[in-house]
């Protein structure tokens, strides 16, 4: 009797807010849009025919396969490695911290991180930095010959002199069109080259000054900057016979072997600067959002695994080491098998969690690629609350419920053994 009083509030609330809705959703999923007509399994058919739901299903599969496994793997690596440094606790705190914040805040954080502009989004800033370290950045985007130029387009974005050059002469290679803020930092005012015997000398420079115009056409004016670092090739019969790079003041020197050659400014000088990846575009948006999820949840995996690791008997690891096992072998053959139950619990927990992922996708995916990033929980929200399709939304929710039933069954079975004491 007293027990009933203690239990009543909980059971009433659970009944009204959890159990009743399950029954309602199951029934509702067999009725049409208005809820008046029986629809059979039409709503479930829509799960596999509706374009939006199919994308959502496909993305959910990607999520469930990758997000939990990567988060668990990282958690395992972090848990094992932090045991070997003295500041392991501080590290764990940093990685675990995102678990305390809302997915909304995490979403806003990652909208900033994934900003397409490498000058604003840190992901692209780093990516472009790495890219440009390995692939030389071009220095003179949009440069092109001006009026009465000695240069002409050579196809593929390169430019070439109209007439061959001779040793002992000086050559002018003026171009226009590079925005002032894109000029190389080291560029100095251009200097007219002095002729040298048996050599070809010349200047390549921006034949234009903002506010002053071209000045004297095709000749160097004091305020015009040299194309510092411009690559120049001497070409005979389509073969490069000599090449050089312009100095800070735009001057360059080529050996006598270039006599009679045409001078070419190869296209690598003029490529548009690399702008990084379109993280939130249609093709990358799901992996990008999964990245932010891993940022939030790897700490969860790490903490659970670290707790499991603390329970692993040290003597076992030591014994393996004494037997001559390398650290990798100890990890692979002793640590991981001993942790297998924990790894399984973590992975399954994350899978259930990932199945319901909503906030991150809703916030991070911009309107233009939200259809490409769609997941079931988001589609359910759309169908149920903005497209007025409660029947289909109910079918999605029942589908989600069916997917977690094995875990439900497992939980109950495990506890049934414990409860019988």
């Amino acid at each position, binding site marked *: 009797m*007293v027990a*009933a009083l*203690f*239990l009543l*509030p*909980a*059971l009433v*609330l*659970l009944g*009204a*807010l*959890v159990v*009743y*809705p*399950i029954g*309602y*959703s199951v029934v*509702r999923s067999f009725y049409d849009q208005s809820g008046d007509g029986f629809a059979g399994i039409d709503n479930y058919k829509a799960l596999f025919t509706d374009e939006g739901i199919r994308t959502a299903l496909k993305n959910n599969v990607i999520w469930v396969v990758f997000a939990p496994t990567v988060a668990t793997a990282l958690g395992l690596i972090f848990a094992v490695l932090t045991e*070997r*440094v003295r500041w392991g606790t501080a*590290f764990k705190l*940093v*990685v675990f*911290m995102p678990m*305390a*914040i*809302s997915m*909304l*805040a995490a979403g*806003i*954080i*990652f*909208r*900033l991180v994934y900003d397409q502009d490498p000058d604003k*989004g*840190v992901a692209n800033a780093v990516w472009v930095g790495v890219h440009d370290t390995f692939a030389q950045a071009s220095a003179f985007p949009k440069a092109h010959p001006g009026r009465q130029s000695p240069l002409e387009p050579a196809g593929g974005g390169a430019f070439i002199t109209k007439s061959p050059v001779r040793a002992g002469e000086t050559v002018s290679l003026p171009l226009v069109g590079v925005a002032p803020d894109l000029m190389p930092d080291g560029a100095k005012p251009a200097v007219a080259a002095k002729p040298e015997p048996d050599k070809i000398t010349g200047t390549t420079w921006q034949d234009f000054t903002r506010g002053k115009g071209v000045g004297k056409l095709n000749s160097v004016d004091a305020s015009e900057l040299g194309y510092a670092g411009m690559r120049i090739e001497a070409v005979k019969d389509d073969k490069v016979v000599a090449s050089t790079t312009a100095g800070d003041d735009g001057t360059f020197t080529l050996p006598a072997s270039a006599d009679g050659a045409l001078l070419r400014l190869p296209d690598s000088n003029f490529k548009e600067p690399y702008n990084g990846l379109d993280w939130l575009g249609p093709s990358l948006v799901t992996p990008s959002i999964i990245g932010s999820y891993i940022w939030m949840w790897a700490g969860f995996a790490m*903490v*659970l695994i670290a*707790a499991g690791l603390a329970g692993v008997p040290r003597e076992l690891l030591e014994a393996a080491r004494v037997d001559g096992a390398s650290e990798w072998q100890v990890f692979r053959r002793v640590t991981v098998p001993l942790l297998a139950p924990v790894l399984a*619990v973590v992975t399954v927990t994350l899978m*259930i969690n990932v199945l*319901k992922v909503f*906030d991150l996708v*809703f*916030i991070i995916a911009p309107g233009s690629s939200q259809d490409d990033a769609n997941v079931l*929980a988001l589609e*359910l*929200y759309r169908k*149920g609350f903005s497209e007025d399709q*409660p029947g289909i*939304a109910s079918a999605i*929710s029942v589908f*989600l*419920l069916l997917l*977690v039933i094995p875990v*439900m069954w497992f*939980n109950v079975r495990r506890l*049934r053994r414990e*409860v*019988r004491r």
Partner: protein
Amino acid sequence: MKTKQSLGSRLAEGVSGGLVRVFLIVVGLFWLVPTIGLLLSSLRSPEDIAASGWWKVFTEPSQITFDSYRKLLENEDITSSLLNTVWITVPATLLVVIIGSLAGYAFAWMEFPGRDWWFLGVVGLLVVPVQVALIPIAELFGTIGIFGSVLGVVFFHVGFGLPFAVFLLRNFFAEIPRELLEAARLDGAGELRLFFRVVMPLGAPAIAALGIFQFLWVWNDLLVALIFSDSGSQPITVALQTQVRQFGNNIDVLAPGAFISMVVPLAVFFAFQRQFVSGVMAGAVK
């Protein structure tokens, strides 16, 4: 020979130890930088944000300004939604703790027919996705007239917080030594007295873990409030979400707003790390 080998392996260990350190530092930066980016963005003017990346403040510290925060705290939509967050989170946490403790105690120490089956039923509900209840509860709340109110949001969170609460507390209460309870019963204490004088104090660690877990859960929720609150009762997460569509234009609201919404959970997290961790561990099935 022996010493040479150990010298070599010690050398290898030193190198790999260095690599481990470098690796962990790089990973740590990966985890810290996004949050630092948000913090520094919230401290710059919208014009500066539109012009350059947040790392610019390292070379131009004069860009730092609290204007966005000042404007935000003068914005009534934001301040009232912050209050709503409190009005939703505090009752939803207290109710779950109290109702969950009562039920947990009954399941652990009272005798009644079918007790274990009832408890297993509650455990089964642990993994039920909230999505299943959104449409039915929206209609139910509409019928009884609490759709769009703080009360409705609170109820929903209590309903879905209870399975975990009952599960966690019943398991913890079951560990209380039987003699303690028997002794109190022999002294003539009633169940209610027993509950408040013996069970609640002894269960404090589990109750704290549950309370913190539930608090963060509700504070950080977006989906439930998105559906069950209206413009007058919406918490901060929903208020900010409405600004996300125009992300670039609203960055001066979003960045400081997100940061303010993070302050309380982070404070709770740092103050109660241990309880939080044990809550998370116990909840590894949710």
